[in-house]
């Protein structure tokens, strides 16, 4: 029998129902062996169809993601999975990698996942596992890697170590604070339980870690209620820690207080060893548990341990107590705290985890707790416990009563404040989470994704539409928007938004908000070249800060940055550096080193190092910042683009022009990935074109600069408009078209002249450009005047080295040589050489060194010192061809000088 016959019979039967196949074969095929064979093939076909056999090519499944080797799968949700993974470079460490499952990557799921990753990246708390890296697999599935916590579940840890009640409460407070931090960042956990609260030992001390933040939110529920939460019989895991509103299957309506409820269950278990709602029936279905949860009120924890059963005795022993002692310890405060957290009506629960933690703290400090029956006797007892000594000493009841009355009034006021604050925090968490989702859902015209600028515009509109009634929240968000505008180079819009935020902050008179807005405004003013206004705002910020006994670190750091900006504007670089170092230290001490703020401070610091010509130091800092951003999942941010562009500027200053061009091109590529079809920001375009100019690619540079100037004008970014125009003028000079450059340069001089202190280095460089124009046009005397003015502006010869001083010295040497003042020319060129050699990482790679050598060589030759001239020319050729390339006109000029040594004599 041939394979052709087999195939014909196989295909004839393939689409028949299995029952009909035998009959059909019996009718059409007389050979029983062949019939049997065909049936076997058909069975193999059905099975293959079912399993998708051989469809997957053999090694399409990655066991490696990003820089991580996946070791084993440690968790799985409806749409995502979690792997234990190992990274070998840059350091060997273990991480947990979360990844969207293949085949579930709908736009919706990926958007949620991304939202989740961003939320996680925003959180920076020692008790929250942080993001290590984020990215996308080759087949387009997003993933992120988080710190892997090798801890054990909270309750297990406490029992194993037989922790007493106070120690347990201490750990619980830390957990509440971590959850509070998340809420402030707009993340609701929704799945708090001991399995997600791990305790790791750090330096011999227990440190709780909240894990699985919102994995449920990211990959299972959220806007679309998933099956896991809509079908009781299919509830994943145990519903024991779930709030009634979650169990009622309305995931849409779950807010931060659901986490408060879950924390209440965890506290109950920590204290008693039992769950508030565990039925004794081991066969209870989830549905039965949910029913009990919804219909019964939990008993007081103390009553749970009082019953004479073996479990409570064991629980008590785990806490170093007898069951009677444990019951006594729990009765009162702790009973009330737990029951308040477990209220079915969330309006009667604590408003936030921090409110819950505050009450636990009050209990530990023997102060009256908010929860519980507010009987006079109870309060008096608490008051007495705290003021045991003064009360016994007090002579009469009357004195005590007055003191008591005053105390109570004060406390009531404090508590009301705290409650308001907690409510505000909770509302803010929800609002910002909702706000982010709404913003991400906006799409641009024709359904294309929004550009970053449009996104921020939409955000501002959305704020007006939906959050006008909540000025505090609106002001905070406006502040965020203004910073995003600044990142995007839109000084004007940033200013407009800040004016609105400032008005709100003044009206509601919130010193924290006011300080933050004023400080942000300082930077905007300086960007807009208005130092006087900036000074006023800085004074306002200082006044607001003085009213705050403990300013939040973020506010304090923002204001230190503003102080440093101001000092930098006044050319007081020592103060600027010291101020930024202080900000850096503050963030490091409070372990706030993962957020964008820390990176911003490092970048500012790099700017100061740059302006004081400490380029090598600045480069090291720049590399550190880039690395930290990549590691913290911020490789795809505008901030990261800026860091790359700064690297280009630094390499440029070090004379490594080709390296600078590569770095700038990389920055542009990163930016394009981020901004899609949007043109590069003015900052990026200018940075890139400066390198192009130096490489002799003037045409390209001018095209970019013209577009950058237009864009900066549209964005209202005066600072960048002027800088773009300046480099446009320089490009024309370098291309040998001085006449066209002149009018452009005059306009720039007027603009920078308005703030001559801050722009001193820029003006000095501008005078050099003027000198070059005159040199090109043959006005040697005029050129010498300009270059003298340039050097004077730099403060030469006493000057601290400024970024463009070396270039000015080289130009000066050329002009003096042309004027026949060879002695001066030689000393200027020697100074230029010394300066650039001191700056360069490797003098043989520096264009600045090369150019200085080239001028020096021609001066030496003119003075008749041919031997020295030759050796300078050789060194110049090497440096120039390394840094600018073989084809560059300066390199060719150097080569020509090498070939024709006797032409000049």
């Amino acid at each position, binding site marked *: 029998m041939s394979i052709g016959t*087999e195939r014909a019979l196989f295909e004839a039967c393939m689409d028949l129902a299995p029952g009909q196949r035998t009959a059909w074969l019996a009718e059409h095929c007389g050979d029983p062996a062949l019939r049997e064979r065909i049936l076997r093939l058909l069975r193999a*076909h059905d099975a293959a169809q079912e399993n998708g056999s*051989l469809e997957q*090519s053999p090694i399409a499944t*990655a066991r490696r*993601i*990003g*820089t991580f080797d996946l070791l084993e799968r440690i968790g799985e949700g409806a749409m995502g999975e979690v792997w234990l993974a190992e990274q070998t470079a840059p350091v060997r460490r273990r991480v947990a990698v979360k990844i969207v499952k293949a085949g579930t990557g709908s736009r919706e799921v990926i958007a949620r996942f991304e939202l989740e990753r961003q939320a996680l990246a925003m959180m920076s708390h020692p008790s929250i596992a942080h993001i290590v890296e984020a990215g996308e697999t080759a087949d387009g599935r997003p993933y992120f890697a988080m710190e892997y916590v090798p801890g054990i579940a909270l309750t297990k840890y406490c029992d194993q170590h037989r922790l007493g009640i106070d120690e347990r409460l201490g750990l619980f407070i830390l957990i509440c604070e971590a959850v509070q931090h998340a809420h402030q960042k707009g993340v609701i956990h929704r799945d708090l339980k001991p399995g997600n609260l791990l305790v790791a030992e750090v330096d011999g001390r227990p440190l709780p870690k909240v894990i699985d933040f919102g994995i449920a939110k990211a990959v299972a529920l959220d806007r679309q209620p998933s099956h896991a939460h809509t079908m009781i019989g299919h509830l994943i895991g145990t519903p024991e820690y779930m709030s009634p509103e979650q169990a009622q299957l309305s995931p849409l309506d779950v807010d931060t207080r659901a986490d408060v409820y879950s924390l209440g269950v965890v506290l109950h278990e920590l204290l008693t060893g039992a769950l508030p709602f565990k039925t004794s029936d081991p066969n209870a279905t989830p549905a039965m548990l949910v029913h009990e949860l919804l219909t019964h009120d939990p008993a007081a924890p103390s009553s749970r341990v009082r019953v004479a059963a073996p479990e409570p005795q064991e629980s008590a022993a785990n806490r170093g107590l007898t069951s009677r002692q444990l019951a006594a310890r729990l009765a009162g405060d702790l009973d009330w705290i737990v029951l308040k957290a477990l209220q079915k009506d969330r309006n009667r629960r604590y408003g936030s985890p921090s409110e819950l933690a505050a009450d636990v703290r009050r209990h530990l400090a023997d102060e009256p707790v908010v929860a519980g029956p507010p009987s006079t006797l109870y309060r008096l007892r608490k008051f007495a416990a705290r003021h045991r000594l003064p009360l016994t000493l007090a002579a009469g009841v009357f004195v005590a009563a007055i003191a008591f009355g005053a105390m109570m009034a004060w406390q009531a006021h404090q508590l009301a404040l705290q409650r308001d604050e907690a409510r505000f925090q909770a509302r803010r968490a929800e609002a910002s989470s909702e706000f982010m989702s709404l913003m991400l859902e906006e799409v641009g015209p024709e359904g294309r994704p929004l550009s970053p600028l449009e996104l921020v515009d939409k955000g501002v509109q959305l704020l007006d539409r939906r959050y006008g009634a909540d000025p505090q929240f609106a002001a905070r968000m406006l502040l965020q928007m203004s910073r995003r505008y600044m990142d995007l180079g839109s000084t004007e819009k940033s200013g407009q938004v800040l004016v609105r935020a400032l008005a709100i902050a003044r009206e509601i008179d919130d010193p924290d908000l006011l300080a933050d807005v004023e400080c942000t405004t300082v930077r905007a003013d300086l960007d807009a070249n208005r130092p006087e206004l900036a000074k006023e705002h800085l004074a306002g910020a200082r006044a607001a800060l003085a009213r705050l006994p403990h300013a939040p670190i973020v506010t304090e750091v923002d204001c230190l940055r503003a102080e440093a900006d101001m000092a930098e504007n006044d050319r007081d670089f020592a103060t600027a550096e010291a101020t930024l170092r202080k900000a850096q230290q503050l963030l490091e001490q409070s372990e706030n080193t993962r957020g964008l703020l820390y990176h911003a401070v490092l970048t500012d610091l790099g700017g100061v190092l740059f302006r004081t010509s400490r380029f090598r130091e600045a480069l090291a800092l720049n590399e550190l910042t880039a690395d930290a951003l990549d590691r913290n999942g911020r490789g795809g941010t505008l901030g990261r683009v800026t860091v790359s562009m700064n690297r280009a500027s630094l390499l440029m200053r070090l004379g490594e022009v080709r390296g600078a061009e590569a770095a700038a091109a990389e920055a542009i590529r990163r930016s394009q990935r981020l901004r899609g079809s949007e043109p590069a920001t003015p900052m990026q375009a200018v940075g890139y074109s400066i390198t192009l100019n130096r490489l002799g690619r003037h045409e390209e540079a001018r095209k970019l600069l013209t577009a950058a100037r237009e864009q900066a004008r549209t964005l209202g970014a005066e600072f960048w408009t002027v800088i773009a125009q300046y480099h446009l003028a320089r490009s024309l000079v370098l291309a040998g078209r001085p006449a066209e450059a002149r009018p452009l340069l005059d306009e720039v001089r007027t603009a920078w002249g308005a703030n001559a202190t801050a722009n001193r280095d820029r003006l000095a460089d501008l005078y050099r450009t003027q000198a070059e124009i005159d040199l090109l046009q043959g006005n040697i005397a005029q050129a010498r005047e300009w270059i003298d003015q340039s050097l004077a502006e730099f403060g030469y010869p006493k000057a601290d080295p400024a970024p463009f001083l070396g270039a000015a010295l080289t130009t000066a040497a050329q002009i003096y040589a042309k004027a026949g003042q060879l002695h001066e020319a030689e000393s200027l060129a020697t100074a230029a050489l010394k300066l650039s050699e001191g700056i360069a990482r490797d003098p043989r790679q520096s264009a600045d060194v090369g150019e200085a050598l080239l001028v020096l060589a021609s001066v030496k030759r003119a003075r008749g010192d041919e031997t020295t001239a030759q050796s300078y020319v050789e060194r110049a050729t090497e440096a120039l061809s390394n840094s600018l390339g073989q084809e560059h006109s300066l390199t060719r000029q150097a080569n020509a000088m090498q070939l024709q040594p006797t032409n000049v004599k």
Partner: protein
Amino acid sequence: MSDGEVTRLLDAAGSGDRAALDRLYGQVYDELRRLAESRLRRERAGHTLQPTALVNEAYLRLSPDSSSWENRRHFFGAAAQAMRRILVDHARQKLADKRAAGARVTLADLDIAAPEEDLDVLAVSDALDVLAQEDPRLSEVVSLRFFAGMSVEETARALDVSPMTIKRDWAFARAWLCERIG
């Protein structure tokens, strides 16, 4: 290798030059192997070894400038054979490593496939040899689909037949192989 060389080999193979076909296979094999190794060694975000991507990349890199159907068919045929050899060698190597180590497979440079998948690769490859003697065309379809990871449409394009034909070929060939492997 110069740009024109592959085109020249493809043209020669098209006119029945057996040696040219062998040389072509050698070139494609070297290129694929180099690509696979560099892909796996590069420590970059999100790379997986996707045979389809590799084969396509090899095609682009070797850039035969004649795009005749005949040439495409020869090229992808050679690529699928080369990919098959890479995968089979790799699977054999890993099984040998595993036997030698007596424990878990170590992460050798090409190690990303799970052990069961290695067995699949070897079993399919052996069964495919038998099928090739019965019906060379079917074996070619399997080779492109399974070893080069091509979709039905891509396979159809490579062999210049309709996707419907490939679907039917694939259904039978797969049943045949699965029945044999058991």
